[in-house]
């Protein structure tokens, strides 16, 4: 039972005569007296941590919350997330609030060293004093200290030197003052302002969904910075984050506000399912946001016009369905689709949402970069359950079953079928992706060992 138990357990019913009471359920471990105001602040801080999705990077599946150790595979080496529990030796227990706030907004550690920009401080720079105060109180008082030492990064010298990061910060990271001035710009409604704050600030959506420049800096940090913002990023852990702007085929142009809130709440809707790192983001973060905040996020995202104005809306085309159902001569891609994919995704490509997502008209399928679709066919992926949708669905991996040429054929078919219009892929593309998928990058792959995923601190991570 972790100290972050989401709600205190009612044990009143156990108080009947003659029954042995449980001893195993501990009360939430709060270091100080829990008067209501302090408790409210901790609760608020936890909400900020969820909005900022801290756990996605600082909590390993099956480990104690916020003890770090999550591996980022970067071109320059492997970076491990840090222990941000209030442990005084291994965590941040000795940090003052000022040091804490500086790390989050400016990327500077308590010892003055610069953080790698894997920590999204250029986005967090927007966060308000009020939110950061609550967050600090939560981490100091609402999180259980864990004495796990920080794992050493494997970034070789000279890239391991941190002083160049200081220059990076000067060049690319906004000053907190500038960031907050940007956050305070004029919006059409308070709801849009709130949505912009959540997306551009704590939500740090752009860290993945905005393209990065030559020095790994995000090419845009806010909607004000132009159409690059949230127009889709480069692959992270082998998954390509799609555009969150209004493109009708490759972005969210066809998604309604209700589609978006359902997706952020449950990881699934009738148009698609979360996988890869987005599954993690929903699991640790967005599922806990209030309906108002999710609606604000959705309305803000819907306010972003298409970066690519040339796309026509997706229209269903029955030709592929007819071919699959004809029983006639099929192309290798059609044949592979029938034998491997159609059971769940159907000959119409419509799937059985929300259990099995559609491929027809799905923005992820039509992404210019085929990385995600190749990746998911090779490794499979698990959509974990959430509070509102506890079922977990796993797509199995086909890496042992399909050759590079077969994957290329079926991906090419899917990207062309039912009105989809994305470019073909080759066996060379597949071979390249397959080579990248070393086990360490597959942290979202389905559980394979007996009970490996079942842990007290992450009951919901056990795929069913």
């Amino acid at each position, binding site marked *: 039972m972790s100290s972050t138990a989401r709600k205190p357990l009612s044990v*009143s*019913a156990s108080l009947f005569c*003659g029954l042995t009471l449980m001893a195993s359920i501990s009360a939430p471990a709060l270091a100080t007296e829990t008067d209501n105001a302090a408790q409210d602040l901790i609760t608020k801080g936890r909400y900020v941590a969820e909005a900022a999705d801290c756990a996605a990077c600082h909590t390993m599946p099956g480990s104690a919350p916020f003890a770090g150790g999550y591996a980022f595979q970067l071109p320059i080496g492997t970076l491990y997330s840090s222990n941000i529990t209030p442990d005084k030796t291994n965590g941040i227990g000795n940090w003052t609030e000022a040091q804490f706030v500086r790390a989050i907004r400016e990327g500077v550690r308590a010892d003055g060293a610069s953080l790698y920009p894997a920590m999204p401080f250029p986005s967090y720079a927007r966060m308000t004093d009020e939110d950061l105060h609550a967050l600090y109180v939560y981490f100091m008082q609402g999180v259980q200290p864990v004495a796990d030492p920080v794992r050493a990064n494997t970034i070789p010298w000279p890239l391991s030197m941190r002083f160049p990061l200081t220059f990076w910060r000067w060049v690319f990271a906004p000053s907190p003052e500038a960031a907050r001035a940007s956050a305070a710009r004029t919006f059409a409604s308070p709801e849009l302002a709130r949505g912009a704050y959540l997306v551009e600030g704590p939500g740090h959506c752009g860290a993945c969904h905005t393209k990065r420049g030559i020095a790994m800096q995000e090419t845009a940090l806010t909607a004000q910075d132009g159409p690059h913002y949230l127009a889709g990023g480069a692959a992270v852990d082998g998954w390509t984050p799609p555009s969150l702007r209004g493109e009708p085929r490759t972005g969210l142009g066809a998604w309604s506000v209700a589609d978006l809130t359902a997706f952020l709440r449950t990881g699934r809707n009738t148009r698609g399912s979360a996988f890869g790192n987005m599954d993690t983001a929903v699991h640790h973060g967005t599922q806990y946001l209030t309906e108002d905040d999710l609606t604000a996020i959705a309305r803000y995202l819907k306010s972003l016009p298409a970066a690519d104005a040339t796309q026509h809306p997706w229209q269903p085309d029955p030709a592929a369905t007819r071919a699959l159902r004809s029983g006639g001569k099929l192309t290798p891609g059609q044949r592979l689709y029938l034998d491997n994919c159609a*059971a769940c995704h159907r000959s119409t490509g419509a799937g059985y949402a929300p259990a099995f997502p559609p491929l027809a008209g799905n923005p992820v399928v039509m992404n210019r970069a085929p990385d995600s679709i190749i990746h998911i066919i090779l490794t499979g992926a698990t959509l974990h359950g959430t509070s509102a949708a506890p*079922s977990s*669905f796993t797509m*199995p991996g086909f890496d042992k079953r399909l050759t590079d040429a077969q994957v290329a054929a079926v991906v090419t078919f899917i990207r062309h079928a039912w009105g989809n219009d994305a470019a073909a892929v080759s066996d060379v593309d597949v071979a390249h992706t397959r080579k990248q998928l070393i086990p360490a990058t597959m942290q979202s792959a389905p559980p394979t060992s007996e009970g490996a995923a079942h842990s007290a601190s992450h009951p919901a991570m056990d795929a069913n």
Partner: protein
Amino acid sequence: MAEKTLPPVDVVVVGSGWAGSIMAKELCEAGLSVVMLERGARRSTARDGAYPASIDELEGAVRYKLFQNPAQTTVTVRNRTDQEAVPYRRLAAFLPGAGVGGAGLHWTGVHFRATPQDLRLRSHVVERYGSKFIPEGMALQDYGVTYEELEPFFDRAEKVFGTSGLAYTVNGEVTGKGNVFAPDRSDDFPLPPLRDVYTAHLFRHAATEAGYHPYAMPAANASQPYTNTYGAQMGPCNFCGYCSDYACYMSAKASPNVNIMPALRRHENFTLRSNAHVLKVLLDSTGKKATGVVYQDAEGNHITQPAGLVILAAFQFHNVHLMLLSGIGKAYDPASNTGTVGRNFTYQNITNSTVLMPPTRSTDQFIGSAGGVAIDDFNSDNFDHGPHGFIGGSPLWVNQAGVKPIAGAKGSFPGAPRWGSAWKKAAIDTYRHSFTINAQGSNMAYRDVYLDLDPTWRTSYGQPMLRMTFDWKDNDIRMNRFVVSQLEGVVKALGAQDAHYGMREPGKPFDVRDYQTTHLCGGAIMGEDPKTSALNRYLQSWDVPNVFVVGANAFPQGMGYNPTGLVAALAYWSAHHIRTQWLKGNGGPLVAQ
């Protein structure tokens, strides 16, 4: 091997199938700390149902991946009390599951309610036919609970299972073309019925022509995507036929793993321990109160789990076995007809008839689901038994569950050549043009059919095996032969080329070598009289009131319908009374003796 005692919990649930999962969910909702112990492995649709590897007949139906390993523990079997029982070493006649989800993971999904007559069969027979109608040696009993009392719990289970079906009446009003013999319902099925496969379609028309009343079988295979009471989501059935013996890769077949575990695991007060084989229930010095259970873990350690409430929800005969090993209630003695634990052990009386259609009709037997078309004209007491002189009945149905390659190669039409090109031709013709009609009938309880501890054989855990003494009796043989013979009109209307009527043969003993059904019942039955039932009408042990024993073990006799729907309803019924009465009382009996 080490011994260890764990901190106490409120409830220990033995078994993770439907009964255990329902009880655990209900008691977690009541705020109790619940530990579920499962003797087998962790199982999930993600792993065990991963497509396409999961649709492997050799692994699933030949090597029995999801089933109990008889090398660890099994039963001994004999037909009569004057025989020596020998162990059931190879799974065949019945297939108990092992692993999380239990039999609920490998079942097909046929999901019936019980008939009102079957729930009070003794009273009903006496009322309609007189007490002399009951043959000597038949231990006919009532459940002690009526259909009207169980109706809300049948309804609840269907909404959790995502059951597809078609009602006949809802709240007294005829609403659809469902089973005219079905009792009234408080609500329709949560999903429309599965569509008829071709053979079921043929059967529907032929049965109508023969003057019977066909209906769509209720199936816990979702006919559409479904979100259940607990927020758990199901995909729809695509008729792939890999239901029975397999985890459903579509999450379309209801299972504890798909329909309950996702929500159950979110309870912080819930713990599941797999590879935990419960050896016995521990009683205090009075023998009237359970203090917990002791189980053996994967490393061979003996772990004591103290608990205030013990729910036995293992497979039917494992529940009986645990009661006998633990000394809960008095063991049944057929000689003196005393004792309750082990009595009224029953099975299900199923025989299969095969219809061979003309070569122009392809029966597409690879298609399958838990759906189909049935007639209930000869089930339960839907017909006058007076002229026939037997008790019980049997639905007749085409429940095409998908014939896989190995089974297809093994199953030629009766009388076909056994080798060579003639066999190949017969196998191909049988697969392409035949189909099966099942008569799945009731099995009554008898004084000399029972369960007890074997005096000779021991399990790998060093405990006496459970001994089954079972044989077919005249009443049930005549019932089966009568019902199957009613198929002649259907076969004629089908325009079949040939038909083989599968009937029980008088004098032919129960044979464990052929698969029949896993629908074993009784042995620790519910009832109104502590002298003839082990459990009261709330499934509470008469003898140890903080032990509830949930499952088909509670059925006083075997019915024609599949048992799971009644098991689930009884679990919700029992849990409801634990929550609303027992937890608020002093932990004593819910029914005074």
